[in-house]
């Protein structure tokens, strides 16, 4: 009895997370005010962090909250503040273009969902049975042994991105002002 009520509670939490995520994505795409878009993006990203918790990975959920919600959304808000008159110019889109875009993404959605429903997904035969080693220790160990190249490449990419961002934003100021 205890167990089944807990199960129902977790199911309700899952569907509430689904609702928040999709509502956040809709807010992130449709309203014309860019600040609403950023807030909707933060909502959707938090919902995806909730999915990672449901999938059993606490570490990735925390990283999602830290990197996406904590860093990228804040950076976008700063960019909005720095480029100020966003509300002055709201370009009206031609209806045919919007309709074509909506048709393209609807075709994509129908194709992917029907493919997902038709396929019979089988787990890999070498898959280890029993509780999965999803702990931070496993991830850290694999990042420093078998997947060390990933670790090094991402450090290099982040360094290049930092330098590139400074150069792009700094040089443009020197050229124009």
């Amino acid at each position, binding site marked *: 009895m205890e167990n089944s009520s807990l199960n129902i509670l977790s*199911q309700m939490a899952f*569907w509430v997370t689904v609702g928040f*995520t*999709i509502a956040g*994505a809709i807010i*992130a*795409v449709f309203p014309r005010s860019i600040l609403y*878009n950023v807030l909707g*993006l933060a909502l959707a*990203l938090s919902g*995806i962090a909730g*999915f990672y918790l*449901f*999938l*059993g*990975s606490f570490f*990735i959920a925390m*990283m999602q909250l830290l*990197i*996406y919600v904590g860093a*990228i959304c804040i*950076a*976008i808000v700063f*960019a909005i503040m720095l*480029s100020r008159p*966003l509300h002055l*110019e709201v*370009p009206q*889109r031609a209806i045919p273009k919007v309709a074509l*875009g909506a048709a393209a*993404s*609807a075709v*994509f*959605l129908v194709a*992917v*969902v029907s493919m*997902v*429903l038709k396929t019979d*997904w089988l*787990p*890999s035969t070498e*898959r*280890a049975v029993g509780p*999965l*080693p999803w702990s931070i220790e496993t*991830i850290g160990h*694999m990042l420093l042994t078998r997947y060390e190249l*990933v670790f090094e490449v*991402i450090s290099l*990419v*982040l360094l*290049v*991105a930092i330098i*590139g*961002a400074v150069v*792009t934003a700094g*040089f*443009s*100021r020197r050229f124009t*002002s």
Partner: protein
Amino acid sequence: MNSLNTYLIISAILFSLGLLGILQRRNLIGMLISVELLLNSANLNFMAFNRFLAPDPAVGQIIALFVMGLAAAEAAIGLSIILALFRQMHSINIERAQQLKG
């Protein structure tokens, strides 16, 4: 609730919303937000496949971390390009950034 198909369908919905955003917005920051949605839905797919199907226990999580790092780099570069473009054009509507058009 906890089946692979649920996660795949949710991520397909998120991906098509992001695709629609890229196709119909003309505001550069709005397009960047849609790109973040696309990357996140791909990440959700990786995590779901890793949880339900993959032989290796942590490879999906490592790919997800890698994609998060790439998204951070992409957001930094994209925002600095947006700032530079705004200083040049006084607008971030991409239909006005057409100086290279012949």
